[in-house]
Each structure stands twice: as C-alpha cells, then as structure tokens.
C-alpha cells in the first residue's frame, strides 16, 4: 500500500534503502512473481527474499510482510498481489529484482493473471507435504500461456511429512524439465533460498524494451490515496516513465500528468524514472476513480503515440451477484462513494444501483466468488463505517426469449414462468485433484451436483485429476467444504468459466402475509426449490417477531405455494404495573420500543426487523469458501 512521499527515516543499522537515483540497465532487471496453490508458502518465501536482499531489516521483519491489509493478516491469506523491488549482487553484478507475491485463492486468479503480464518469469511453488494441487495446475497453465519462464520449486522441505523427491518428480513432469532443475527450499528456515535467487537471475530472461521507443506501460493495479489521488502500479514496457510526464489513458482518452514515480522497496520510495522493464508506482493526481483503469496503458503525449494498448489481461468477470443495502437508509450515498473508492483498488468489483421494495436503495454488486464478496463487505463496513445488509448471492442467468437474451443478475428480475423459452446458467470447468482412494466419493458428489464428467487421469498411482463440467451455482456455496470433508481434506479444486447451458431453473419467492419480499427471491434448480423454500420459511418463522395478527410465511413458485409456516399473533405486550414511581420508567420503555419499531422494515403488513433480514440472508458459515 502507498505510504506517502517520504519513507520514514531509517534507524542506524537498518538495511540500506534502494538507491532510487541509479538507472538500471535492462539486462540486469528480472521481473518475476511467485505463484502456487493457496497456502503453499508464497508470502513466507517472499519474506526470506526480503531478508536475503536486505530490503527489510531484522527489526522490521514480521511474518508475511507483504500481506499488509488487516484482513490479510487476520485471515492469513493474500488477497492483493504486492509488487516489491529488491536488489541482489551476483558475480559482481547488481541486479534489480521486481517480485510480485500473488494470492492463491481461486477467487483471485485474475490477480495472478495480471501480475503475470508484468513479469518474464514465475516461481511455481509446491508444498512438499501436499504435492501438486488444483491451483498449482491452473496457475502453471496461466504462466505458461503468458509465455513466462517457469522456475519450479518444492517448498516446505523442513516439514516431517515432506515428500521432496516425489514432489520434485511430479513437478518436473508437469513443467516438462529434468528433476535436477527443480529446486528445493524451505520458506520457513530459509534453506535453499539463496540458490533460488540465483536460479531466478540465471534462468529468467531480462525484459525486452527500448528506452528510445514511445512510452508504453501497463497499469496492473491501482489504489486510492485520499491526499494524492489515484496511485497506479505500472510495468513499463517501452520507453521511460518520468515524473511530471504528460500521459494519456487510451481507454478513456484523457490527458494527465504523472505527479510522482516510485518503487516499493518495500515501502514507497520516489525515483526519477522507470525505464523499460521496470515495475513501480505512479501518483496520478487524478481524483476520479473512473479515469484510471487497470489494464490500461499510458503512452506519453506528443512524441508519437504508441500503436495500441497492450493486450493487458482478461477483464475479471464477476461470478456471483448480491444486493448490498445500507441498514440505515440515509447511507445510500455513503455506500456509493465507498464502492467507488474500493473499485479503484479492486478492478473485479462491479455494481449497479438496485431498488428493493423491502430493503430500499442499494447496489447489485458482482463478485469473483464468496470470499471476494465477504472481503468487500467487510472492508465497506470496517473502512467506511457502514452497516450493510447483503442479499443471498446468486449467479448470472440468461433468459432466452425467441432470439433475445435477457441477462439477469437479480432473482427478482427473473420473468415469471411461461413467459420465456428457457433459462441458461453459467457452467464452469472444474479441476479436482484427489487421492485415488477418495475418487468414488468425489465422483458421487459431482454427480449429485449435476456434474458432467469430461475426463480423468492418474497423475500417479495414488493421485487422480478429474475434470467436470458443473453448474457454477452448485459449487460456489458449500461444494468445497463437501469436497474437503469427503476426502479428509486432501482434494483440491479449481475452476474456470466454461459457458452457459440450459437448465430447469425456477424462481422461488418468499411471501409474508401474501406479499412477495423481493430480497428473499432466489433462482434455484427445480429439484432444490422445495428445500430452499422450506429452509427460508423455517428460518423466517424464528426470526420474525410475533405481530398483532397471524402472519403467513410462504414459499412459492409462481402462484404455487410450496412451503408455509405461520407466526402466531402475539397476545401479550403490556406492562403489568404502572404506579406513581413507575411512570417515568414505563414511558422510557415505550419510547425505546418506539425507536425499535423505527428500525423495522414494513413488508405489506408485516414488520420485519433489520436483524431478521441479515440473519435470513446469511450464508451459513459452512457454506463459505
């Protein structure tokens, strides 16, 4: 994260800061990222690299140094890719190393893909006790397709359960190299890390690019600083990026000035210029979050325009949608501003205004997955002090009517049955790697989730890789937990979008006293409609306080009721005594009750407390991940 123009003064004996004035020859630059399956030790290995290159003093060092966000530290995972510049001497030469630590969770695969666009090499880590897992494959394929040099590394060799030789063999086979080329390290003890650094310098090619060419730089990430505006993370491809350069953003066709150029070493440190192949940051002074788009390139004005934007990277595509509503109606504008600010740091977040009859004004937001949704919601609440209600997440449906396709992000927008030809749902290609002994259980699970097997191959006598086409809606909630529990934690999962397929989907509405509550509508497979309806009406019966009349809670498909519960009318709500000494207290109790009523949302005739919406819409803890 950007820390301000002047890095704090270093105490005596601390590591020497990067000398921002020197211009490094392109041949002595190495740009690489660390990729791996989740938890295989990327950030911990980055710690050792920071130490070995004296980028961080012993005193300042802490575990997973690059995981700077509170949320990352609390959850022990990397959410945002982090770029950092290191310098290392080898054979009398000083090399500039630009390292990007990437997240491993499947929700953030796009962060990996855009980090790859800023690198020539990738360190592919595999946990020696776990072996190759689904995201190992996914990330390997991404890096290979991006044309990167892969440095295969077996990690965590200090673990008693480590199978170093087996993992080395498997990794060599995957990458297509000799097992002797696979390095073995421990990010924990530091064993093998100097050799790894040397291998990176020797194997990863220096960037291409000429100083004389017009500037082309890729914005691969950005953040917003309230004092300095938009800070873009850039990788210069050609030319030189200097502070105060006039720039032009192609995608939005706008001129602006680079206020400051710098590098993360690992704290933000200004430099005079970023040459070809170099990675750093750019203070844009732009206040409008829409003007700088990740994936944009920034050619210099004048001196001839660059020919075309870089084939940046895939636009991240939202996989799940949910309505976010402020608990206090007045916070709508605050929510909009907060979303816009977050969006700047989070290219994957999309949102559009939504009006719910039950929850008022809010936004329908698209997320990469449930972890992403969870993190965005938590950041909005924490960093912007908002209290939010989130509707149950859903995937994007395509409703086909004649030759028209209606894209539906919100179940309540789903047209009534009989008014369309068919509905299509997103399908993903899932890769599951499992020990052979649990194969039966895995296939059974995929079958139960309407999966279609594509192929299956034995990675070794004991490990199998299976590919399935699965409806996205079937795997975003509890699939991963189910998979883990059926394989005693040994299976891993990765998936990528495949396309849309017709499915027998229906919209289930929830009605309170005959009135549909739009926030509770859900589109589900017909076979699961009954169970969804039952669960919701039962939950709501517990959550909705008794009213002055019997209240029916129903689940319906169209006009057909599929489940029903009743909240019995309340019969007693009176203060037993009210004498001379009680009047004040009793009046205050009533005033309190009145304020409580103001927090109720009225749906038809039924008063529903805020808390009931939050609890009814909560995805069960078990369904997360």
């Amino acid at each position, binding site marked *: 994260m950007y820390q301000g123009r002047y890095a704090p003064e270093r105490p005596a004996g601390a590591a020497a800061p990067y000398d921002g004035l020197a211009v490094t020859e392109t041949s002595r630059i190495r740009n690489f990222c660390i990729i791996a399956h989740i938890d295989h030790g990327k950030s911990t290995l980055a710690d050792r690299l920071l130490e070995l290159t004296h980028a961080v003093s012993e005193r300042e060092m802490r575990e997973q140094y690059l995981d700077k966000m509170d949320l990352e530290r609390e959850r022990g995972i990397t959410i945002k890719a982090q770029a950092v510049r290191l310098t290392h001497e080898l054979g009398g030469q000083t090399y500039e190393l630009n390292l990007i630590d990437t997240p491993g969770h499947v929700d953030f695969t796009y962060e990996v893909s855009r980090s790859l666009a800023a690198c020539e090499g990738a360190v592919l880590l595999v946990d020696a006790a776990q072996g190759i897992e689904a995201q190992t494959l996914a990330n390997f394929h991404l890096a290979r397709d991006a044309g990167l040099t892969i440095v295969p590394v077996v990690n965590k060799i200090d673990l008693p359960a480590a199978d170093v030789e087996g993992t080395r063999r498997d990794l060599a086979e995957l990458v297509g190299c000799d097992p002797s080329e696979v390095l073995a390290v421990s990010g924990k003890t530091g064993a093998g890390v100097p050799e790894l650094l040397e291998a990176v310098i020797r194997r990863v090619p220096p960037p291409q690019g000429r100083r004389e060419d017009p500037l082309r730089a890729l914005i691969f990430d950005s953040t917003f600083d309230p004092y300095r505006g938009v800070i873009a993370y850039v990788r210069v491809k050609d030319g030189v990026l200097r502070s105060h350069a006039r720039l032009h953003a192609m995608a939005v066709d706008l001129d602006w000035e680079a206020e400051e150029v710098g590098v993360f070493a690992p704290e933000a440190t200004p430099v005079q210029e970023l040459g070809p192949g170099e990675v750093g940051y750019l203070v844009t002074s732009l206040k409008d979050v829409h003007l700088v788009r990740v994936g944009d390139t920034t050619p210099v004005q004048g001196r001839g325009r660059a020919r075309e934007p870089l084939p940046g990277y895939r636009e991240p595509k939202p996989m799940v949608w949910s309505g976010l509503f402020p608990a206090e109606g007045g916070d709508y504008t605050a929510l909009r501003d907060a979303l816009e600010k977050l969006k700047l740091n989070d290219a994957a977040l999309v949102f559009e205004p939504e009006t719910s009859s039950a929850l008022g004004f809010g936004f329908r937001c698209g997320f990469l997955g449930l972890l992403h949704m969870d993190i965005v919601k938590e950041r909005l609440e924490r960093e912007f002090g908002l209290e939010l209600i989130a509707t149950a997440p859903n995937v994007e449906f395509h409703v086909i009517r004649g030759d028209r396709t209606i894209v539906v992000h919100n179940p309540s927008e789903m047209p009534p049955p009989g008014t369309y030809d068919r509905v299509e749902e997103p399908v993903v290609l899932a890769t599951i790697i499992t020990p052979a002994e649990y194969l039966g259980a895995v296939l059974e699970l995929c079958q139960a989730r309407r999966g279609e097997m594509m192929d299956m191959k034995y990675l070794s006598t004991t490990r199998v890789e299976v590919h399935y086409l699965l409806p996205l809606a079937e795997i975003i909630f509890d699939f991963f937990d189910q998979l883990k529990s059926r394989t005693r934690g040994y299976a891993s999962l990765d998936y990528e979008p495949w396309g849309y397929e017709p499915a027998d989907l229906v919209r289930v509405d929830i009605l309170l006293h005959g009135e549909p509550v739009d926030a509770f509508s859900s589109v589900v497979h017909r076979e699961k409609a009954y169970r969804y309806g039952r669960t919701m009406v039962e939950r709501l019966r517990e959550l909705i306080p008794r009213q002055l009349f019997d209240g029916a809670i129903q689940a319906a498909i169209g006009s057909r009721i599929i489940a029903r519960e009743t909240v019995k009318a309340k019969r007693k709500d*009176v*203060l*037993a005594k*009210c*004498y*001379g*000494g009680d*009047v004040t207290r009793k009046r205050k109790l009533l005033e309190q009750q009145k304020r409580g*009523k103001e927090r109720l949302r009225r749906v038809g005739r039924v008063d529903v407390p805020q808390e009931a919406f939050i609890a009814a819409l909560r995805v069960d803890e078990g369904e997360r991940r």
Partner: protein
Amino acid sequence: MSGLYVHVPFCLTRCGYCDFNAYTGLDHLRSRYVRALLREAELAGAAWPEPVETVFVGGGTPTTLAAEDLAALLVALRERYRVPPGAEVTVEANPDTVDVGKLVVLRESGATRLSMGAQSFDPTVLASLERVHGPDAVRRAMAAAREAGFEDVNLDLIYGAEGETLASWQRTLREAIALGPEHVSAYALTVEPGTPLGRAVALGLRRPPDPDLQADMFALACELLGEAGYRHYEVSNWARPGRECRHNLGYWRRRPYLGLGAGAHSFRGERRWWNVRPPEEYLRRVEAGELPIGGEERLGPEQAHLEEVLLRLRILEGVPASWAEPRAVEPLLDAGLLREQGASLVPTERGMLLLNELVLALAG
C-alpha cells in the same frame, strides 16, 4: 386534590422477582427512618399547596414497622397535610407481618384500607416466587383485617410463575374471591433485569413466563372476577363498584402527588422528581435538614402526551378518537383490540393485553 405516598423500604425477606426499593437487614434503621419521614414531611410540606385526599403507605413492607411507629406516622401525616375525614388511607401489608392487635392500632390511627400481598394460594407457586408465607397466612390475615374493622381490603395476586398452571391459577382466583376482598390486583409476573429472577432467567437457570399462558390467565381473571361482581377498571385492577383505589386513580389521571421516603416519586404539573434510593443516603440528607431529592425531569409536550395516552388507556377511559390517525386506528378496530365508546377509543379485553402496541399506535 392530591395524593401522598409514603415509602417504607424494609422487608423480612427479599422476593426473587421484586425490583422495588426494598431491603432486608436494615431493621436497625427502622425508628430513625420513621423520624426522618416526619422530618421530610415538614420540609416538603411547606411547598405542597394542594389538599391531600388520599394517603398510601407502601413499600417494601410498611407493616414491618412497630405498630406504635406506624400509628404515630399516620397521625402526624394526617395532621401535617390536613387530611380530611373521609379520605382514603391505605397501608400495604404482608400476611405474616400483621395480627389483629397491630391492625386495630392502624385502624384507630386513621387507616381505612388494607392492601395485602397474597400473590397465590398455591404453595408451590408461592415457593417458586420465594414468598415466605403460606396460603393459610393470607386467610388468617384477612380474618384479622375484618376483625380489626377494615371494610376496604385489597388482595394482590401474581400469575405466570414457573410451575403455575391455568388450573392452579383458577384455584387461586376462586380462593381469593371466596375471601371476599373489595378489591383485587392481579399482575402478570414480569422478569425485571437486575433481580435474582432476572439473572436466573438470563443464565438459563429458570424459564421466563410463557406470554401465551399469561394471556390465558388474564382472560380467566377477567372472566372469574367479572362473574364475582368485580369491575375491571385498570389493566391489572378489579374492584367492587365504588371500591376502586382512589389513590392509584390519582396516578393514572395525572393528578399531583407527593412522595415521602427513600426513592419515592412526586409529580405536579410538568415536573416529576424523586428522592434518593438508598435508605442510608436518604437518612443522611433528611437528618441534615435537606430535601432528599435525587433527580427530576420535566416533561415535554410529546412525553406528556405519551403518558396521557398510556394512562388513559390503562384505566379504560380511552382516548378521544380525534387524537389518533384514522389510518392507525382502523386495523386495531378491525382486529378487535380497540372499541369505540361514544367519541372515545377504549381497549377491549384482548387489547388490554397488547396495550403497548395500542399506545404506540395511538400516540403516533
């Protein structure tokens, strides 16, 4: 016209559900306390212009005081506040703190009405309420009251304690009616935070009252007391015609009242004030010649209105229909919680149980 309330904060034992300003183990303060009350009566009396027409000595348990002390107190108060003959003078009593002798003394010093905490006639319910007396003590105390010449006696009952069934409540009501009191107060047991019962419920050690069962019990009370000739005149109060408690009606009609004693509340006009609660502090203040006022509030028009609506609905006088928005009233009329009585809106029997909802709907 005004009322005078006198608080006596001493009890023999502490009942688990009670959140009154009442204490055990302060017996040594009793006579000092009576002297302090007399002193406060002097101090406060100077600023109390209205004639006092009702006196209510409550607690705590006033009858824990020695008969002579109570008598002296009643006589002094009647003198100081020029209480006219024919005034209503009520003393609260616990069944096992009274005998004929003591009651005769009270009667002779001007008490006209006795209010007795019977609570239940079912021994298991009394045990569940942590009351020390048994049902027989109530019968004996009632007989003693009659013998001493009290013609106005109230019995307090509580329903909904853990273990009480509708059948047991029915027996309690029948027993109470059989004793022939002029007045019956029947309260739904309420779990108050900060009481031993409140803590036990919060910890899950005891079950809170079931509101539906309490609703059935309320309906049964309405039925049996009504049949026995008692008129339901306030949510929790029934009386033979003409035997309503005038003192309490004063509270509900928002007439002025002066409170003496630890924690006692007073009201006049837009102002409500109250004495300090701890008896020791009360004594210290009064003995130093100060008014022992602990706090006060002035009611804004909205607060006064909310109180007015609350209290009028409680005593079934209802509020003028013109006070409320028709939009708010109609569903309540439809639901049978309110009924129209002339130009007023009055809660029905079912409505009385949902009075909080009615108040909020009608007070806007």
